[in-house]
Every structure is written in structure tokens, then in C-alpha cells.
């Protein structure tokens, strides 16, 4: 019972966000709260790699792109075939939303597989090659995605296009436009809640401790029987899974366009900054930092030019003054108790 209760709580929280919070705060803040949810999902998942295992991945946006485009293809072209609707139409009722949920999940799984393929060669090695490989991966994804064909807009054209054409018709550098707006507060906060719960349970478990030991001292970790490469790959795949799901949510959100330029390394860096500021290894810290760093720029739009300068300066200063981030690897309630 104790084990199931948190899952129920996550579900309840997501439903509450959808039916009680959304209508009260209005469209503008609903959009911001969805943005916050996606940012938290990205930061909490990246923290599994960067914070728990101490490996340095800076290609999170690349996995987001893999998941987002996969899910987009499934809802846009797959949805059209499945529900016999014009491409991009929202399928009515619960069926459409279930198809969306499945699509995001598939996107996440594809991203996780990509994560294993990309991560394995560099995770075998000690050192910081992972940073370069993930960054390179993100950029390759971006370049490849700009080379895709135009989105097929009409039902007639779609009828004659084979699926092999459909999967590469994702809009090139203009972005995958016309995706149905399935993303809402419920789905956003359901996935985000799941990610937080998974990350926290992981941290407070033997697998999580094995991950932390890799971060602390990889040689000693191996000498204590931990298969360090396996542990790193598991962490990396889990992070990629949630990044892919975040990509699916992002793709189907109102007011955003899934385009390659949006998912470049600038995006990856923003997620890194959230993790570092929140505290490497702190689940709640990453979530808190993601929330603040999403809402504050929204409120200070006129200073957007200086936003990245402030972020960058913060990053350097935090490393010099408080190298483990604001919370370190403690959770919010630990910090509370101490003060």
C-alpha cells in the first residue's frame, strides 16, 4: 500500500492541475505551468546522469528532439490513418488522448534506445568524452532534422504518400508545424510527477547508491563490485527516456513549434544550468531551479537580452563559490531541517 500511494498521489495531482488549477489561472498561466512542467521533467531526468552518476551529458535537447519528432510522426500521420481524420486534427474524446500518451511513450523509448547507442562507446571510457559525444549527437540530430521534407498538409496528398515518405516529412528547418495540441496540464504533470517519483526512489535505493558511488569514485566503485558501465548506461537511458517524453509534450503544446533550431545546444545548456544551480544530485533542487528559471524570464521579458549573460555568470560563480549547486545533493527538506 505504501508503495502504491505515491503513484496515486501523482495521478491525483495531475488531475487536480487539469480540472482545478487550469480553469482558475487562465490560458496564459496554464501555458506557463505546462512550460514549467516540461522544464522540471527535463531537469529532473538530466540530473539522473549529471547529478547521480557524475557523468556529463550536454545533449539532452537532442533526445528531446528524438522523442518529440517520433511522437509527432505518430500523432500527425499515425493519428490521421488511425482515426481517419485530416492530418494534424485532434482525435475526439479519450481515444485521441490515449493515442497521444502512447505516442509520447514510444518517443521516450526511441530516445532511450538512441541514448544507449550514443552513450555506450563513451560511457565505457573514463573522463569527459561523454560531453563531446552528446553535444555532437545533439548537433547531428539538429542538422539531420533540418534536411527533412515539407510537412504533408492535405488529406489527398497524404493518401498517396507511403509511410517511408511520411516519416521524413517533418518540415525541415521550418519545423514540424500543424501538430495537434494534445498537451495539457494533466499529461504534463503526470509525466513530470512520474519522473520525480522515479528519480527520488532511484536515489533512495541500492541502484541509486551505486550511481552515486560512480560519481564519487569510479575506481573504488568498480572495486566494490559495481558494474560501473552498466550503471552509467542505465542512468543515461532513463534520462533519455524522460527527455524523449518531454519532447513529445513540447511538440504538442500550444504556442510552441517543434523545430530544429529550438532544440539546439542552447536548449541543452539551459537544462544543464537548471541541474547545476539546483544542486547536482538533488531531485527537488533540480525541480525548483527549473521552476524558477522558467517563470522568472517570463516576468522579466524586457531583459531577455541579458538573460543568458546572467545565467552564464551564475554558472561560473556557483562553481567557484558552491561547487555542488545550491542544495548540493540534499533534498529541500534536508536543507530545511538544518537551518
Amino acid at each position, binding site marked *: 500500500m*505504501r*508503495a502504491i500511494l505515491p503513484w496515486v498521489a501523482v495521478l491525483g495531482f495531475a488531475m487536480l492541475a487539469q480540472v482545478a488549477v487550469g480553469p482558475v489561472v487562465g490560458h496564459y498561466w496554464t501555458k506557463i505551468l505546462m512550460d514549467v512542467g516540461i522544464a522540471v521533467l527535463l531537469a529532473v531526468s538530466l540530473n539522473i546522469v549529471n547529478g547521480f552518476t557524475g557523468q556529463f551529458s550536454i545533449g539532452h535537447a537532442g533526445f528531446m528532439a528524438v522523442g518529440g519528432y517520433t511522437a509527432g510522426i505518430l500523432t500527425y500521420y499515425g493519428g490521421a490513418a488511425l482515426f481517419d481524420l485530416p492530418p494534424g486534427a485532434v482525435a475526439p474524446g479519450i481515444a485521441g488522448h490515449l493515442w497521444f500518451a502512447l505516442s509520447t511513450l514510444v518517443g521516450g523509448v526511441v530516445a532511450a534506445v538512441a541514448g544507449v547507442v550514443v552513450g555506450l562507446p563513451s560511457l565505457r571510457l573514463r573522463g569527459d568524452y561523454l560531453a563531446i559525444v552528446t553535444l555532437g549527437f545533439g548537433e547531428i540530430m539538429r542538422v539531420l532534422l533540418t534536411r527533412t521534407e515539407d510537412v504533408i498538409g492535405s488529406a489527398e496528398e497524404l493518401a498517396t504518400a507511403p509511410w517511408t515518405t511520411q516519416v521524413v516529412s517533418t518540415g525541415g528547418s521550418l519545423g514540424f508545424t500543424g501538430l495537434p495540441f494534445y498537451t495539457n496540464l494533466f499529461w504534463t504533470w503526470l509525466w513530470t510527477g512520474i519522473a520525480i517519483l*522515479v528519480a527520488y*526512489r*532511484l536515489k533512495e*535505493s*541500492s*541502484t541509486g*547508491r*551505486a550511481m*552515486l*558511488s560512480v560519481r*564519487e*569514485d569510479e*575506481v*573504488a*566503485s*568498480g*572495486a*566494490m*563490485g*559495481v*558494474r*560501473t558501465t552498466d550503471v552509467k548506461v*542505465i542512468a543515461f537511458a532513463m534520462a533519455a527516456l524522460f527527455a524523449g517524453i518531454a519532447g513529445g509534450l513540447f511538440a504538442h503544446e500550444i504556442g510552441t513549434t517543434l523545430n530544429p533550431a529550438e532544440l539546439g545546444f542552447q536548449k541543452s545548456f539551459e537544462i544543464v544550468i537548471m541541474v547545476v544551480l539546483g544542486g547536482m544530485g538533488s531531485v527537488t533542487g533540480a525541480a525548483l531551479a527549473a521552476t524558477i528559471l522558467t517563470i522568472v524570464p517570463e516576468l522579466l521579458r524586457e531583459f531577455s537580452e541579458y538573460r543568458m549573460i546572467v545565467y552564464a555568470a551564475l554558472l561560473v560563480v556557483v562553481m567557484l563559490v558552491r561547487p*555542488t549547486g545550491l542544495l*548540493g*545533493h540534499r533534498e529541500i527538506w534536508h536543507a530545511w531541517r538544518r537551518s
Partner: protein
Amino acid sequence: MTPALFARGVSIRFGGLAAVSNFELALPVGGLYGLIGPNGAGKTTLFNLLTGVYRPDQGEIRLGERDLIGSAPSAIAASGLARTFQNIRLFHQLSALDNVRVAQFAHRRTGLVATLLRTPAWRREEEADRAAAEAWLTAVGLEGRGAELARNLPYGDQRRLEIARALALRPKVLLLDEPAAGMNPQEKLGLRSLIRTLRDTYDLSILLIEHDMGLVMDVCEHITVLDHGEVIARGTAAEVQVDPAVVEAYLGSPEAA
């Protein structure tokens, strides 16, 4: 009877330097053997060879019946060969208890899905492991200190924690790399009885590197002396002490003196 740990003809070169050549050892089950030698004799390199951190150029290493050559350090550790480090390598940001619990991971039966769902089986194993980890802390004299971060422990206690962590692997053979380094005479005395107790209580076979001659001569029933990567003498404490090659290695040759 098959020795607990067996090595024959083990050699490794780094560049032009023969760091260890033709090393031989047969550590019997329940044995408490010592490995001594001047600085740079190749003692720690040998531990790294035995535990799979380095792969020997030649030679044979067996843990019981199991051939260890080519196995990953983690696999060797999980199969029953645990070690401590000369230059303490604890997980500094983790608590003492979590340091010990990391070493239990290799023996876990419940997997990732059970971990995330927190199944009853997972919970039982977690609780059993926690109790066992606390028992290991008690065994080395760190009872009630589990919540402290490893880096905040005093030096001598960090050495003890390294031993507790190694024990949590439930090894057959334990390699101790200078466990008394940096300890005061009081702590060394405690360590002496701890090593003996551990061997007797947990059916361990122990190989000990130590600079403190008093400790080695006192606890070890058999001593191997290494110099420039080669075994120059072996035998009981009394035999080794009077061996001319050993005297020369430690004091320098008569001509040089």
C-alpha cells in the same frame, strides 16, 4: 587443498620498467599473509593486478578455482576478492552506512523495476541489507556512526570504514593495503586485534601490505618480501627478519652504506 588465492608467474611492465615480475603466492584458506618491501617495490601494483585494475602481461591468478585473468574489477570483486586502498578511496559525500551499502549492490536480487515499484521483496531486501550494513559497521568498531558523511570521519575511522565496506562484499579473500598508515599507536593496537578477529569470525583469508613491521611480524604467519618487483624472500617473520637479501633491500647494500 586449493588455495584461496593463487598466483604464478605474474608479471607486468610499464614502458621499460618491470613493475612486477614472476610473482608467486599461494594464500591458503584462512591464511593471514603479509606482503612487505621498500617503497616502490611493486606492492600496490600487485594488488591492482590481483583485483583486475591492471591486466598482467603474463601469469596466472586464481581465486579458488576461478581464473581471474581478463575479468573486470567489478566481476572479480563480486566473486569474492575485496580490497581496501592505500590512499583511502571512500565515497566521500555519502554516509558511512551508504558506503557499506554500495558494496552490497553486486549481490542484490531485486532489479530496477522492483526498485521503482518498491515491491515487498525489494523492501525486505533493503531492510535486510540495512541491518547487515549496520552489523558491518559494528564489526569494525563504528557502531552508531552510520549517518556521518565519510569525509567527516577521522582518519583512523575512515580506514576502518574501508574495511567494513570491503567486508560487505562478503569476500573469501581480503586484501588490505596499508590499513595502519596514519594511525596512532592506540589505533594500531586496535587494528591488530580487529584483523585477527575478522579472519577468525568470517572465515577470511587475508593478504596484508603494511609498512609497520611490528604489526606485520606480529599478525602475519607468513611473509613475502618484494623488492624492485621481484620476490626476494618468503617465510615466517623470524625467517624473513634474518634473511640477508631482506636486510640489504631495506638498509642498502654494505658497499653503499
